[in-house]
């Protein structure tokens, strides 16, 4: 699961000055033709660093993203839910593995990425810094946070970097299960007993703002990503993804009789653009910079998991072992 915005630094064309113009032209022509870039191809340094940054954030979002839903893994009600939630949390870990491998092809080892995550040097999707208070929160995440991630991932899967596309192809196929499972859970709560209904409505109330944040700040406030869009690294703008999400899912939420806590949420029939209230972007900035309700816990848990596993990895490590970059 992974959100859009705020994953890029300011990127300016002038950073390409030191690149060989001929190689750069060839590289850009290949992308222009719709061909994918493979890991051993020549690529501008900026392409490499921005891709590592993006894929790494995506991978971190998967491994950290397994925690809010993991909150309910031991308490899922009934066999069907228990099995599904186990399989879903497992998939998130699996996605992290696939994405770390894709980033590794660009020259950063998984260990280095995990170290940067734990030491607070890398970011991950903001939404996972919010707590899952009730079972209904986990259902909201399974359905709607995953739905948002799918919008983003499907866009990214048409990007230019072959190993990332291969990973995303597999991931998107698995997300179909997440989406249907999550929807199934929400349907059961929303159409269930008054207690279940209330539980679900409260979860929607809690999660709506982070959900709007999920796609990143509005394009007008976003950083310079023109060149990344040209190189097919960033594939859709934050506003495009958010609007697509509203378009696909707001009616599905409403049809279940759930209220969305934004009186201004409305589609303009002329433009097809959804209007929505300002979701307090200062909170978004505060949380992404470490001051959200669960930032500390998420990183502490990840770090403890790593530390408790340290002896295992040391025992497995043979003195002769050498690390090789994955091939594809």
């Amino acid at each position: 699961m992974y959100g859009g915005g705020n994953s890029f630094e300011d990127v300016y064309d002038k950073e390409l000055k030191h690149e060989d113009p001929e190689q750069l032209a060839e590289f850009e022509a290949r992308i222009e033709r719709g061909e994918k870039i493979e890991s051993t191809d020549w690529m501008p340094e900026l392409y490499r660093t921005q891709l590592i940054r993006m894929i790494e954030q995506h991978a971190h979002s998967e491994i950290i993203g397994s925690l809010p839903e993991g909150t309910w893994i031991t308490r899922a009600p009934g066999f069907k839910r228990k099995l599904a939630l186990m399989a879903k949390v497992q998939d998130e870990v699996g996605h992290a593995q696939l994405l770390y491998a894709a980033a590794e092809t660009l020259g950063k080892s998984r260990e280095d990425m995990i170290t940067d995550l734990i030491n607070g040097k890398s970011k991950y999707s903001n939404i996972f810094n919010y707590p899952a208070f009730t079972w209904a929160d986990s259902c909201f995440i399974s359905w709607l946070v995953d739905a948002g991630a799918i919008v983003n991932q499907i866009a990214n899967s048409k990007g230019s970097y072959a190993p990332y596309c291969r990973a995303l192809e597999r991931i998107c196929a698995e997300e179909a299960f997440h989406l249907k499972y999550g929807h199934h859970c929400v349907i059961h709560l929303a159409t269930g007993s008054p207690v279940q209904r209330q539980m679900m409505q409260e979860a929607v109330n809690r999660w709506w703002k982070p959900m709007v944040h999920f796609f990143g700040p509005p394009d007008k406030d976003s950083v310079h990503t023109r060149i990344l869009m040209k190189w097919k690294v960033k594939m859709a703008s934050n506003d495009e993804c958010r609007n697509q999400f509203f378009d696909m899912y707001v009616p599905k939420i409403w049809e279940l009789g759930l209220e969305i806590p934004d009186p201004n949420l409305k589609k303009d029939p002329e433009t097809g653009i959804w209007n929505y209230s300002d979701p307090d972007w200062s909170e978004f900035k505060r949380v992404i910079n470490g001051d959200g309700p669960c930032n500390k816990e998420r990183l502490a848990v990840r770090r403890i998991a790593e530390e408790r596993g340290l002896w295992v990895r040391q025992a497995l490590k043979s003195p002769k072992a050498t690390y090789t970059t994955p091939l594809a």
Partner: protein
Amino acid sequence: MESLDPRVGRLGIPENWGTLEPKSNLDQLETFEVFSIMKENKPFTHVGIVHAPDEEMALVFAKEQYGRRDSTLAMCIANSSNVLVSPFTDNNQNLYDFLEPSKALEDSVSEYQVFHLYKRGKQHQHVGEAEGKGYEDALNRAKEQYDGSKPVLNIWLIKSEHLLSTDEEDAQIWATTPEKKFREATDYRAADKIKRFKQEKA
């Protein structure tokens, strides 16, 4: 540390966790490329990598990372450092057309497994074996046998002895995978429930 997750409560994270030493770089295990066969009469296709301490463990890990859904008939793995990778061509260019006759011949003949990539962004597929006195020679032998109508963009050669494959007896470990419907989207249909809900409300 108090948490909403009872599991986290049991991890015993100290309240002052922030004072733990920053994590230093740990170990990075070796890398293994994983190939699997998903359908009868289809070739081994590259599915991804696992990090593992050795071949046996790599296969154990690969089985669940790449074979926990749908059907898998067989899997094999090779240490990434044992995969000989050719240069890449652009789409529609055939790498075999650029091969030079091999100069340096080794004394003994080895058997290699040959994998082709037909399109950038797709997966390498197994096409067969080629014997050769070293890598270059084997590539030229592969050209004689496997250069067909489709352009080949990239070739992997792996010495047969460097591939570890599940055997026929192992195949039963995938026997119940297709029955695990709880991992499939199709197991979560609830349109009736929405319909009934809307009718009751109307």
